[in-house]
């Protein structure tokens, strides 16, 4: 029996980014609730690295990772929503692409507010909190809390959408995010990023994450 042809969907950096983010958001939540603020800061630094990497990868990564590839206008979204038998695009669908933007935007707000956040006792604080006064730090902390509720809502929406595709549309979206590919009768070719793009993206995001958290860097 011949193997069913596979369609390349997600490159390894996108998949590692996704699952590392899942783990780190969970860990950040747990560590904050249980007063492990040293771990919470480290986790935040790792999330900052991931977000920076993903933003760069959205420009230099494989086609399915690129913003230019998956961000579509309102017409494309309308067409996609109107015709449920329309061929499923490889990678993010026209609506899902914008949910990626929403998720990244909320994560950026979460990380940035965390950089400046100060707790009620003036004990635990983000790595850039010395640049703001106590009240501004408390405001950053309040924003950190509100944005986290928004992040939770987006994650719930994301999981519901994945379940909707699984149960109603009979499409498993989790599989490709694990293996990188999906069964397809006629795979189309997707341009994949090379090692140079990966090295550049890793170096830039590592440098940013190191610099913002380095002692007295700013």
């Amino acid at each position: 029996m011949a193997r069913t042809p596979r369609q390349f969907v997600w490159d390894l950096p996108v998949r590692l980014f996704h699952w590392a983010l899942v783990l780190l958001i969970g860990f950040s939540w747990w560590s904050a609730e249980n007063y492990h603020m040293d771990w919470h800061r480290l986790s935040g630094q790792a999330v900052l690295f991931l977000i920076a990497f993903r933003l760069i990868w959205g420009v230099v990564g494989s086609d399915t990772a690129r913003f230019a590839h998956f961000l579509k206008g309102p017409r494309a979204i309308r067409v996609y929503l109107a015709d449920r038998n329309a061929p499923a695009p490889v990678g993010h669908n026209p609506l899902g692409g914008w949910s990626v933007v929403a998720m990244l935007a909320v994560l950026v707000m979460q990380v940035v507010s965390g950089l400046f956040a100060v707790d009620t006792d003036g004990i635990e604080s983000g790595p850039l909190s010395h640049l703001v006064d106590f009240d501004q730090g408390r405001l950053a902390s309040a924003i950190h809390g509100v944005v986290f509720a928004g992040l939770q809502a987006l994650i719930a929406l994301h999981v519901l959408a994945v379940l909707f595709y699984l149960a109603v549309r009979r499409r498993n979206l989790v599989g490709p995010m694990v293996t990188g590919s999906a069964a397809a009768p006629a795979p189309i070719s997707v341009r994949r990023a090379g090692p140079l793009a990966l090295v550049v993206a890793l170096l830039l995001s590592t440098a940013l994450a190191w610099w913002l958290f380095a002692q007295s860097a700013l």
Partner: protein
Amino acid sequence: MRTLLIAAGLAALLTSPLIAAPGDIVATRIAGFREVGAAFKNINDELKSGRPQLYVVQISARQIRDYARQHMGWFPAGSGPRPGVKTAAKPEIWTQAPAFKKAQDGFTTQANAFAGVAGSGDVAKMRVAAKALGGSCATCHRSFRVEDKR
């Protein structure tokens, strides 16, 4: 008549803080602990930097020590949560008064100790003492304060 009016007015002015006191104690302690938090942020900002400004640490340490002397009077009976009053003070402050007193004494002890260490100029010792001082805040807050987890 005029003198009488002035006298009555002066008397009213002078006694009004006393009359207002029970209601305002919640605002007083919120403002006071806010100052403690702001002062402790200054201390921790300096201590985490490579070149701490010792006078900032010392002034802030004295500020915290002064508030630690006042805070014993910030929780009179009846100043707990009730409708229309926004406070994070838990009822346990009054139902477990001895334990609360112990936590308050812990803060006073650490505030005094830190002010002493800050005066010595030894940054390494200040970092250790600041941890202990922060610990005394956290110990009390986890039992007696409604936490806003952020």
